Structures are given as C-alpha cells and as structure tokens.
C-alpha cells in the first residue's frame, strides 16, 4: 500500500526558509488537505512530495521501493503542452485511452478533444489538467488548488469527478488549497499551516459524518478558521 511520510525540519529556497517543522503522513485511501495563507510554502511542499525537489532537511518518503508511486499531479498552473491537442496531452502523460475519453466527457471537454491545448480557456485548461492527473492510473494524487479559477458550476462538477474517482480508487491524496470549506468538504484530515516559514499549526481529522452534513461542515470550517488565527 502506498503511503507518504513527511518529516521536514527545514526547507530553504535560495537561502530563505519556506518550510519549518512539518511532520505528517498520508495513508492509503486518505485525502489530506493542506491549508494555509498564500505564499506559506504549500506548493513547495507539493513539489517535495512529487520528488521534483529533493533538497530538504528531513525526509519526504513514499513507501515501497524503486522510483516511487506513479503520481497524478495537478500543478497550480495547468502546465499543458500548448502545441499538442487535448487528447495528445492526455496520451503523452501516460493516460489510459478509455479512461481519458471518459474523463473528457465527464468534465465537458469531449468536444475539444482534437483542439490545440493553446486554444483552451483557462477554465478548460484547468479541467484538462485534472483529467490528466486522474487518467494516468495514479497510485497517489498531488493536487495544487485543482479547482481554482473554475466558475461555480465547473467547480462543483470537478469536485464531484474527484469524489467519484476517490470512491473507486482510494489512493493517498494530498490536496493543497487556501479554502478551508473546500478542505473540510473533501478531506479526511485538514492540516493547517502557519504563515511562512510554514509550521504545522494543527492536524484535524474530519469525520465522515461532519463532511456529509452541511451545517456541521460549516461549523467545523468556522472553528478551524478561528483556531488558525
């Protein structure tokens, strides 16, 4: 079973500390949301988890051996290949063909399958980035603000698609967001970070009963917001 263990004592970017004491793990089937003010180092944490940056005091480790798990990553920017079509962008990232088509359909991009990615609107590009992460048969998901700059309808749609996915394939998921409500709605646990250099303020489990009940969820968000202050 894939599992992410993070134990960071310090992470610097060009000499400046961006992450302080930070220890947690993401177990199989668990969605962990990382919430914090913008610029507190959330994206740096995600890059470390993705293995794109390995210079850190401490450890960021995936269980298992070899090259680590196959990851489905949504970056803060869509990072598509503008000179390839929507369908090619999926295929090149290693997407399963049928699953890719299904996700394009589900995320309202089927009609755009043969369009250059350069010609997508930002909202469509973000949905394609999500489709790409979900279509690659990932053993773990790393999502950096995956619903940002989507309109309300598409945000609901994208969240539903992610929720369905996690029901079918409960892979460990790290969700970076600045939105506590989103974190409570989607995650089993919410990690709240301090302003940079980020430290772990608290690690709060969100019981499924709370997530299912809008009133309880709203109350939890309010409590967490107070605590974070």
């Amino acid at each position, binding site marked *: 079973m894939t599992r992410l263990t993070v134990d960071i004592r310090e992470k610097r970017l060009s000499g400046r500390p961006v992450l302080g004491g930070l220890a947690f793990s993401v177990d199989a089937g668990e969605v962990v949301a990382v919430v914090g003010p913008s610029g507190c180092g959330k994206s740096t944490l995600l890059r470390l988890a993705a293995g*794109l940056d390995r210079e850190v005091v401490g450890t960021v480790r995936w269980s298992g051996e070899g*090259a680590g798990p*196959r990851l489905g990553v949504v970056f803060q920017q869509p*990072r598509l*290949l503008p000179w*390839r079509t929507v369908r090619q962008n999926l295929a*090149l*990232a290693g997407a399963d063909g049928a699953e890719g088509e299904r996700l394009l359909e589900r995320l309202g991009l089927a009609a755009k399958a043969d369009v250059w*990615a350069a010609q997508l609107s930002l909202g469509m590009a973000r949905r394609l980035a999500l489709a*790409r992460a979900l279509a690659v048969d990932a053993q773990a998901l790393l999502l950096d603000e995956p619903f940002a700059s989507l309109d309300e309808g598409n945000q609901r749609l994208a969240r539903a698609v992610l929720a369905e996915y996690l029901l079918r394939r409960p892979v460990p998921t790290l969700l970076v967001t600045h939105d506590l409500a989103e974190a409570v709605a989607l995650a089993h646990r919410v990690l709240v970070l301090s302003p940079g250099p980020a430290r772990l303020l608290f690690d709060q489990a969100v019981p499924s009963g709370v997530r299912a009940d809008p009133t309880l969820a709203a109350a939890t968000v309010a409590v967490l917001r107070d605590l974070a202050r």
Partner: protein
Amino acid sequence: MVGRGLTTGRQAWLVRALSVLVLLLVWEVAGRLAASPLAPPASTVLATMARETASGALPHHVGITLARVAVSFLLAMGAGTALGLAMGWWRTVDLWLDSALLLLLNLPALVLIVLLYVWFGLTEAAAVTAVALNKLPTTAVMVREGVRALDGELLEMGRAFRFGRAATLRHIVLPQLQPYLFAATRSGLALIWKIVLVVELLGRSDGVGFQIQVYFQLFDVARILAYALAFILIVQVIEWVALQPLERRAARWKAS
C-alpha cells in the same frame, strides 16, 4: 504589411511583384546607358542564363554547389544542434566548450577554409567540412539560447508524468526550440551558400564558385551575374516551398 491601405495579402503581393519589376527596369536602363560588357543589362544576363541552362552547364554546376550546400548544411545543423542542446542543458559542458566555440565563431571563414585545404588536401571532404565548421558555432549558440529559455515548469510536468528522455525531447523541448531552429536554418542557408562559393573558388574544379572564378579571369560579367542570379532564385524557392510551409505547419497551434 501593416501600412495604411495595404492590409490585404493580395495587395502586398502586388507591391512586392511591382518592386521586383521596377528593380529589373532600373537595371535594364542603367545597363543600356552604360553600354559596356562589364555592366550588362538585365535582358543580357537573363539571356545568358537561358543559354547556360540550355547548354547544361548551369544546371550541372548549380547542382554540384547545391549538393555541397545541402551536405554542409545538414552537418552544421545536426552537430550544431546537438552541441547547443548539450551546452544549454549541462553547465559543465558549456564551461568546457564555450571558449572553443568563441574561437570558432571569430575565426574568419577564409582562414578555416585555407587551413583545412592545407591539412587535408583539395578534397571534397575538406571543402564540406570547412563550410560546416563555419556555420556550426552560430547554430550551437542559437540552440543554446533556446535551451536556456526553455519553460522549466513544463519540464517539471514531464518529469512528474514520467515522459522519459525521448518524449521530453520531442514533445516538450523541440517545440520550444523551433523558432530558434528556423532562425538558424534561415541564416544558415544564406551564409552557407556564400561560403560554398569561396570554397569552390579556392579549391574545387566545379560548382558555381569555380565558374565564377573562370569568368572573373575572362571578365565575363554577364555569366558571373547569371550564375549568381540562378542561385539566388533557387535559395528563394527553397524558402517558399520548404521553409515557409514547414514553419506554418510548426506554428499551426498558434493560429486561432
């Protein structure tokens, strides 16, 4: 063309065609006024061109020169691109090779040609290598600039999704290098054929450069111009039928 009143492509083409006609006309009139075999009018040069073409001499020599241009161009672009990629990618490679590149970049073409002929004899290989070595450093420098301007975020995306070396090169790196490669190709074609003529003049017994040397000794300006004009036309045709369509194809994702 952005100028006022000339917004359509057709009008722009009309002006281009007219400008060529005017140029020919000025040449013709000036040539007739000069009335000297050393400054022949356009009609004489074109007639000479037709005659040389009919006799088979012009196609023969132009063909040989074109083959030399093609081989040295491919050598220079291939090696220059590989070198530029390596230098842009690995800082150590760049540090090791930068001085050598600078040396080659500032070495006069003529010196390189003479040295290669002295060392390797008046051979085809020496000629083609001399031309390729003249073009190689500019290609390497251009590609290196392109590599340095690569989008790091896309490279990271490729790593996260495990593109692998070949797919990264083909789908992430090369599309970003295309403008640099086209620029290198254009300046390369223009530069290479001029150097090929010098190489032919100095050490070959065929090709356009050799012919020009012969007609220089005979003071036959009409033939010199006929050969030069033929080659200019061919380079322009290459631009139209190969380079521009390729460039349009490469940039089609940008069109709305």
